[in-house]
């Protein structure tokens, strides 16, 4: 557990983003640029755009994000458990099963509520 293994990641964060930027700059210099109002219009199957792009979404998307956040936190906790699993007894499995089951209860509840249906 040293910092040394992170030097490469740090360097990559500093230098790696240039690689996608280089072709962008190349395109910036090479490509023609003659914008006009028609070209700059927002693409909408040939008709004029009405209103702002910020439309309201259905709560549907949100429920999936909710369930995901809860599961994501649980998954992160599973990592150290899986890491130490070889050095643990069978009780570790039992405890993790309880941990998972509690969240599965919530998933089943969401399911039964019909929140996972895409109406």
């Amino acid at each position, binding site marked *: 557990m040293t910092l040394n293994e992170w030097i490469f990641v740090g360097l990559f964060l500093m230098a790696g983003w240039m690689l996608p930027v280089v072709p962008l700059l190349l395109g910036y210099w090479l490509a023609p640029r003659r914008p006009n109002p028609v070209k700059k219009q927002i693409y909408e199957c040939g008709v004029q755009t009405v209103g702002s792009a910020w439309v309201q979404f259905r709560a549907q998307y949100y429920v999936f994000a909710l369930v995901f956040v809860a599961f*994501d936190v649980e998954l992160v906790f599973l990592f*150290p458990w899986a890491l130490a699993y070889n050095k643990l007894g069978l009780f570790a499995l039992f405890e993790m099963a309880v941990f998972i089951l509690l969240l599965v209860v919530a998933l089943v509840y969401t399911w039964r509520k019909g929140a996972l249906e895409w109406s």
Partner: protein
Amino acid sequence: MEITVEAIVFLVFSAITLGGALQVVLTRNLFHAALYLMLSLFGVAGLFVLLTAPFLAGAQVVIYIGAITILIIFAIMLTPQVTRVLKVHHTQWPVALALAALLFVGLVWTQTPLADELGADGWSADFTVEDPADVPADSLTDLGKSLVDPERYMLPFEAASLLLMAALIGAVLLVNRPDDNPDAEAAPAAGARPDQSG
């Protein structure tokens, strides 16, 4: 005052964290604020790496950037600015600013030797101190062990799961109301570019 590579990295990540946080608080556009929140939290993840807690850094990115901020953005999209408010902040913001600044000065004054340093002879803060004891190599495995050890953190661990379950059920109960569905996808758009959101 010697500046090491580590100190530079620390300063960079601190700047990212604090700068991002300032933008979260000040930006008008809520979507931008959420992105700045991601930036700020990413800076915190960098600080965790510097503190030799790579697991927490990974968890920070996965949970905060990959999940919580995404959820926040989803929520922002569900509540378009019906009221086009031009004011982002309360009128009493100077009071809040004074309060926050006072708290900051107080915290720094009591918690750090900065005051002594400044009092002595100008700025002489040292950027390097002796390393504290090393983190054991198997600290991550130990983390896994301690989470399921009945003598250590088993109870909080299961309680965490219970908390998540309760939160999820409660949230679904609040959000999922099939009887009224005002947020139809074709709801009228709320005027021009929503830069004026509070």
